[in-house]
């Protein structure tokens, strides 16, 4: 962790925008909400972390080749086009974009998934994809919003 959550809050307050948005720390938040329920000042830290991630993606200044924002965007795209996530395919895409060597190092895990019948190769998808896409794009008038294309 480059910055602890407390340091992130202090940097935000002191308006060190670049430092915050470039920090890997915000991407390390796994959304376990421990800090949110723990904070003696009742700061909703997890939600703030989300807001910062959104901002970093919007402004395109998240740490490069860092797998977490890449995963988030791949996830975003897959949901947009298919309506559902196929985890194995998502992870493959992540590895290809972020660190193809990881594919090699986790081959045993892949084989294990095949053996246990958990490796899904066919895309899960919903029927009414047009409806969903329409809904997700319904708020495009807001110029702050991003389309999946920009996110790509």
């Amino acid at each position, binding site marked *: 962790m480059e910055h602890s959550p407390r340091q992130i809050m202090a940097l935000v307050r002191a308006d060190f925008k670049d430092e915050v948005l470039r920090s890997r720390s915000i991407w390390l938040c*796994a959304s376990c909400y421990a800090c949110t329920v723990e904070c003696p000042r009742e700061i909703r830290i997890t939600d703030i972390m989300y807001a910062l991630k959104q901002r970093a993606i919007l402004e395109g200044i998240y740490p490069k080749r860092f797998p977490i924002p890449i995963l988030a965007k791949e996830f975003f795209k897959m*949901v947009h086009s298919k309506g559902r*996530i196929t985890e194995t395919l998502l992870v493959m895409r992540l590895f290809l974009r972020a660190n193809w060597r990881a594919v090699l190092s986790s081959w045993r895990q892949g084989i294990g998934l095949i053996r246990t019948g958990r490796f899904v190769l066919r895309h899960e998808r919903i029927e009414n994809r047009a409806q969903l896409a329409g809904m997700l794009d319904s708020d495009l008038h807001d110029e702050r919003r991003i389309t999946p294309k920009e996110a790509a």
Partner: protein
Amino acid sequence: MKYAYFPGCSLKGLGRAYEESLLPVMEKLGVELVELNDWNCCGATAYMSVDETKACILAARNLAIAEKTGSRDLVTPCSACYLVLNKTKHYLKDSPEIRGSVQRALEGAGLRYSGEMPVRHPLDILVHDVGLDVIREKVVRPLTGLKVAPYYGCQVVRPYATFDDAWNPTTMDRLLATLGAEVVPYPLKTKCCGGSLTGTLPDTGLRLTYILLKEAVRRGADVIATICPLCQFNLDAYHDQLTRQWGPVPIPTVYFTQLMGLAFGLPESQLGLRRNFVRMKPLPALPARA
């Protein structure tokens, strides 16, 4: 008892053993789970990282579909889905701005959502609606002698926990005890498993996973019971890497519904137990009856 049911993507993929065991167990107890028609991904944590409003629209589509079924409650077994659906409910209630965008999106698609329908976890249904007494009656093969570490993870108990305590939840403990299992004190029961970090930043993520496994072993557990597909995957699928880095921590992690199935005498083959990397050992022999 009839509930609308939102399985979520994991239960159709890496976490299919969860659904495979949940459905027959619920059936055995007379609980009908009606899968939502054409549900979509809840958005999980990743979607929220990109766009808050869209994340809420995504989740709200499911909530609207669920309300259309006329059921009283929506049940979802995956922790991430549970959190996201509940969080969306809260956001829609608290933020007029988000509510506006979401309502526009729903209307455009001919959907409606009132915001009333409770989103609940199977654990909640089992302990509070079905009741431990009914469950106890269905136990034909008590898990006597099996030492279980109850592991809740984060997102079911935090921050929207309504049916259990955020720091020391006990519903699963009580449920497992009802099955006859010996519940091992496991203070790490609500610690994070690493979430998606195990995949994206293995060094950080796996360390959390390792501590959970190691402590379960140290406290004498035979098996870890979990309520979340991602927790199950993290605790089960990385033993190779963990052993290489810190040494072996050979303990299986199964869904609590799988343990219920075993106790209810359902055939092992139907409970998805063969999908584990670290397989569960046969149940300890029952003590001879006096």
